[in-house]
């Protein structure tokens, strides 16, 4: 486990760098008070707001306060959701909507969408890739190639709109967006899953072609195993490492893709929160959302590493230290 501990340490440092960058960059682009109250607000109003938001303290003090809060799981208070602009002593609970609450409220929806998108894409991509590798140069192979190329090159935003027009507007099968029942997730998951679907299918296909030419496949055939088991267990498990690598990459892309897809479908996830925070110049929420996304990415990378060791018994966590 020392490897994992060290990795966690690196991740924490990475997060601190991200946080610091967002914090200072956010302050550098302008005075949040002017952004909030507009150009014509009076100096007294601005001064009052800065006081209430704690923006009059020295920047470094604000920064240490923020980082200190982070350590205790406190992401600060939204500038715009709730009533942070009011004097804190007016409220028993300190005033303002905690960013942590906002982020935690949105995170499950993003995870849900990403899980459905990736799960669906992965299942379909593996089947597509395997079929293509089992019948190379057949019409199935060509179909898989065309489909995966198309889904990799398509722009998610555009795909989302096309899906809405086709399935919600013309066919009326599914809602145009929103969140609620399980059918709400289908279209956004399709839009979000298209890219990983294509990428994973392509990688699966080529990795499977490699694996199917290996001696252990001939040996497995020779002992009389059914072909489906040879493909789905023997070859696929060995093709797993490139597939997991690309899936990890795609997961990171998925998080960025979620920002667009959530916006198109009005999906109440972290991406949507991030866009709103950006539009509202709500620095604490923006920081919190970016932090959440960065944490997701780091956790995903760690999971990918752990999956490697499962797929390739020769690599153990301790041996990867070198």
């Amino acid at each position, binding site marked *: 486990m020392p490897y994992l501990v060290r990795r966690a340490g690196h991740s924490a440092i990475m997060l601190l760098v991200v946080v610091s960058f967002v914090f200072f960059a956010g302050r550098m682009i302008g005075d949040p008070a002017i*952004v909030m109250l507009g150009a*014509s607000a*009076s100096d007294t109003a601005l001064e009052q707001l800065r006081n209430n938001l704690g923006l009059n303290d020295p920047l470094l003090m604000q920064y240490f306060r923020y980082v200190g809060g982070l350590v205790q799981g406190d992401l600060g208070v939204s500038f715009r959701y709730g009533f942070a*602009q009011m004097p804190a002593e007016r409220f028993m609970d300190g005033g303002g909507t905690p960013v942590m609450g906002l982020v935690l409220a949105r995170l499950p929806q993003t995870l849900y969408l990403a899980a459905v998108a990736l799960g669906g894409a992965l299942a379909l991509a593996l089947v597509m890739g395997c079929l293509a590798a089992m019948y190379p140069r057949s019409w199935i192979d060509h179909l898989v190639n065309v489909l995966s190329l198309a889904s990799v090159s398509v722009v998610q935003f555009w795909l989302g709109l096309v899906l809405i027009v086709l399935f919600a507007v013309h066919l009326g099968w599914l809602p*145009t967006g929103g969140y609620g*029942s399980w059918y709400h997730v289908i279209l956004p998951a399709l839009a979000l899953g298209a890219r990983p679907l294509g990428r994973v299918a392509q990688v699966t296909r080529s990795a499977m072609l490699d694996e199917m030419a290996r001696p252990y496949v001939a040996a497995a055939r020779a002992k009389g195993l059914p072909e489906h088991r040879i493909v789905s267990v023997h070859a696929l498990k060995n093709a797993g490492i490139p597939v997991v690598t690309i899936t990890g990459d795609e997961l990171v892309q998925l998080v960025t893709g979620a920002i667009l897809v959530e916006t198109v479908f009005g999906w109440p996830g972290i991406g949507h929160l991030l866009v709103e925070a950006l539009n509202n110049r709500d620095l604490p929420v923006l920081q919190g959302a970016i932090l959440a996304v960065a944490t997701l990415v780091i956790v995903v990378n760690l999971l990918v590493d752990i999956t490697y060791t499962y797929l390739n018994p020769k690599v153990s966590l301790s041996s990867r230290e070198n």
Partner: protein
Amino acid sequence: MKTRQTALAITLAGVLAGVTSLALADTFVVAVPQEPQDLAAQGIYKEINAPGLRNVIEPLIMMDADSGDYVPVLAQDWEVIDDTSLRLHLREGVVFHDGTPMDAEAVATSIEFVWDQENAFTIQEYAGPGRISAEVEDDLTVVVHSSEPDPMLDFRMSLTGITSQDQIENNPSAHFTQPLGTGPYAFEDWDQGSSWSAVRNDDWWGRAADDVYGQNIPDYDRVRFEFRTESSSRMAMIMAGEADIVVSPQSSDCERAERLDGFSCVTGPSSQYIYGRLDYSLFADERLEDPRIRAAIFHALSYEGLADILGLASVPQGQLGTPDMTGFNDALEQYASDPQRSMELVQQAQADGVNLNGLRVEVMGRDDTPRIGELVEAIGAMIEAVGIPTRQNVQTPAVANPRFRISEYKAEAPRAMMQVHVKENPAPDFGLNLHSNYACPDLDDPSGVSRSSVFCDEEFDERLHEALTLIGEERHEAMQELNAFLHERYVIIPLALLDRAYLVRDGLDLTFGPDGRFLLANVTQSD
């Protein structure tokens, strides 16, 4: 194999069941472009803060769309006592959605809470020169005071949302997320990130009153506001029959609505306008004070062309407002689009020794303005075409906003900037417009409303000061004259008037609220 078929059948059945439940009976669905940051009472001063909140929270008075007069809402009657106080007589028997009475004490609490400078609510952008306080005269009578003379106290009262006193005092946090107003709909639920909804208030005072606002008594069981940032997503909602009304469609959506069945685009003038504020008498490049150079820039622009770029917009009539406004001057016309004349003016100025060397007019916009990139580029090109060099710049609010403030003019002096910006007339009266856009900025002015002006003219300031104290026809005429005065001096370029548009499902009629508010009371069945 059997189980697989069963599973498939169940899945299909589920899909079908899902589809049928999509259209929830008797829920009126409005697709709005943004999630509100909160649902606090102060937010009703501007529709964009929380579209639809006016159906839950009502003000004391509101402006009538046609007459431009204030009409009763929670106050049945009111009188101006003097230029610092306004007495309002409240409607009897009105209760908030929590059952507590809407009386003078509750109203005074709301007014002071909303306008409290320490609370620093964004409504402060429409604050008057003085601090607002409210005094209970009797159970149903409230007197509103301003610490400085404020002829627009009634306007400020039309912006003030009145909510439960009990909530403000005992559960202030809930005030921001679970509004308790008096409106025809009572707040039900806010599904963060998705929508908020309200249910019909069967005890609404408007059901029994004979002076109720709006076109009818709204009768939908429930109204839900769905947040969709993407205009195409909002468009899809009405195309799929999921929404009854879509707020702020794009002009292309309105064009498509013409060709599509099931809904139409309803447009009308809004209170928003786009202006080009060209640096003038404050820390400006002196060449911009030359009347010929200013006129050359004003006449260089094709206003029809700019309206086309914007889509839902029209050419203004030489002033920053609409004909319904007090002070609108019918005799004025938009600056002629005449590049030939502009070129001649530039040449004349040069012949008179005005040296344009080093002058570069910065056409600058803020990136949250619609179509700002195209707009800034087109304006820049038109000005260049008559021989005045420009550069174009689109900035974020964080960078742009400080540059609109007087302290920054000084820092950048001498400056030659044309700020292309959207502004809104909060009331159908030129008073605030003239004051905030043209009055010479006063660093000691606590309200700060004139701080974005670039114009300093003693005569104008005197006449404006007088006009602002007037009422009725006198006020109207005084402001008409001021508009003509400004028009001749080429102070600010009225670039375009923005239209307001809604996509409305067939079978419904929408009457525009007086001040851009979406009110269910203004939705009627058309057949």
